[in-house]
């Protein structure tokens, strides 16, 4: 591993070729993640967070979508130069992912046990009895009561919170090095959300798991993440340690996002929201994509995209206000 990084994404570009134009869903994204660290990927809907995650696993929907350029260095090797067969061995075994909706993530016609056992059966050479024990162990790990009984049941017999935990068991059964979670708690009840996050954190501490959590909820970021990257229109506009970012946001978009969180102590007449709409990704204006909505916009913002500059160690931003 190079400098203790589990994964390093360099200038990743994933485009979708549609009849309406080229949609630049991911347009030059770069970040790093160390072992045991949790990165939060934050942004509005449609900014490219989910596609970034799918790109890492090389599961971008075809034929419209394609990874156009960049590098994804995982454990010293570039994932983009691997064959499909090699990627299959990595998926589920070394990199894994949780999707947003637990209600549809599990196959309705297969038993829980069958689905949790599947990655184990595919990636590891264990006999039937050991596989069953492993499944029970994983279900216990995610706090599913009476796993022997649950194993034989079907997904529709479980609640949403339980299903998400089962997905967790399924996804961690081969002890991956990296877990990507795409809005894992958005579809859950608020009380269940907290439980689930706590569970993830515990598992992470036990096994030194690295995580990328995609979310639009800063509350989750504050609780679970070490570092944070803010995305807008396919690019990362600011990235930093969580503390740093909350204390010292530089990019106007980051500042606006943090401002839109209602604060309990402050009384306001009108809730703050960012004016305008996210841009159409096939029709991006030249220059900084946030410029049309930026309150501190300057002339140069409309002409050219700002290069990345360092605010301090670990804190980067792409903004003409700070060069």
């Amino acid at each position, binding site marked *: 591993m190079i400098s203790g990084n589990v994964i390093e994404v360099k200038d990743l570009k994933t*485009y979708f*070729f549609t*009849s*309406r*134009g*080229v949609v630049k869903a991911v347009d030059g994204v770069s970040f790093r993640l160390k072992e045991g660290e949790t990165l939060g990927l934050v942004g509005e809907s449609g900014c490219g967070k989910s596609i970034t995650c799918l790109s890492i696993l090389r599961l971008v929907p075809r034929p419209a979508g394609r990874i*156009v350029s960049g590098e994804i260095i995982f454990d010293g090797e570039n994932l983009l130069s691997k064959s499909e067969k090699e990627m299959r061995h990595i998926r589920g075994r070394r990199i894994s992912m949780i999707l947003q909706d637990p209600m549809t993530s599990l196959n309705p016609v297969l038993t829980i046990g069958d689905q949790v056992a599947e990655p184990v059966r595919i990636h590891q050479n264990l006999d039937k009895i050991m596989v069953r024990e492993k499944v029970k162990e994983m279900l216990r790990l995610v706090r599913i009561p009476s796993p022997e009984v649950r194993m034989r049941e079907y997904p529709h017999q479980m609640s949403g919170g339980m299903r998400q935990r089962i997905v967790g068991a399924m996804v961690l059964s081969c002890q991956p090095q990296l877990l990507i979670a795409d809005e894992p708690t958005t579809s859950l009840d608020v009380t269940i959300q907290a439980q689930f996050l706590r569970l993830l954190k515990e598992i992470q501490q036990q096994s030194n798991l690295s995580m990328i959590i995609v979310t639009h909820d800063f509350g989750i970021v504050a609780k679970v993440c070490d570092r944070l990257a803010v995305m807008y229109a396919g690019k990362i506009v600011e990235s930093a340690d969580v503390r740093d970012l909350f204390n010292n946001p530089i990019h106007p978009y980051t500042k606006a996002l943090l401002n839109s969180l209602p604060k309990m102590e402050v009384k306001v007449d009108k809730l703050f929201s960012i004016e305008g709409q996210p841009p159409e990704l*096939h*029709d991006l204006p*030249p220059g900084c994509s946030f410029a049309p909505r930026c309150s501190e916009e300057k002339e140069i913002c409309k*002409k*050219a*995209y700002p290069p990345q500059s360092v605010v301090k160690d670990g804190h980067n931003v792409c903004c003409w206000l700070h060069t």
Partner: protein
Amino acid sequence: MGDLERSQRVTNISWLAKRNSVSKIRTAMRKAPWVSVVILIVFLVCGLFGTFIMPHDPLKTNFTETLNPPFWQEGGSLRYFLGTDYMGRDILSRLIQGAGISMQVGFIVITLAGILGTVVALLSGYLGGWVDTILMRITDTFLSMPYLMIAIALAAVLGPSKNNIILILVILGWAGYARVLRGEVLRVKEGDFVRLAIVAGCSKTRIMLRHIFPNIVNTLVVLATLQLGIVIIMESSLSFLGLGVPPPEPAWGSMCADGRLHIFNAWWICFWPGLVILLVVLSANLLGDWLRVRLDPKFRQL
């Protein structure tokens, strides 16, 4: 990376990209099934104005000109363009008159079955409760009947005639509309504008007619177009068996039945009617499919 490099990159990639909204409309129009529309228009014209365009009298027999082949084969002539049958009748003229029959039966059936089905769907979907249960049970019974068996049984009882065929096909056809449209009514019913109408004091009939019906018209049009093909096939199948429009009227199906007996020496008698059925039904299906995609992209049915 500067502006220039970036715009060069875009041009390189744009081999798959198209321009903006102007081309959107053009693409949609280009994909329209123009051939189908033309074929259906020809069909309509033959049906409505057939008597003016046919070269000969379709019912007039002429025993000196029996079994003439189509014009490009030896023994054929341009006078009897597609050939003649075993009674010396001109095939082309018979085809044109047959178009009239199929058209009449087709359009009347889809109209009547459509009206009946829509009324049932509106009442059943909007009123709900026991009205819904009873109507749906009836609909299901009608849907689960093997149509040809019943059509044959009815045709046997009532006797073959054009009106009877229309009656039979309407009886068998309305249920399909009712079931699908009821689903649409249920969906539209949930819209807030319906609730507003109720709050404003509209009567149930008014709501059904002025608010719900216009929103299901799209589906109705698609269904009717697709049904046209089905009705034509059913009518020609019944005519083929001798239970449909009776001779001497040249229904396409009965022409094929006639042709069967002469298939060894006069292949054209049963070839042309079937081909015409294929063209019309195919066009109706293609048009219906295109309409379905255009009018409601979320309409995912089989």
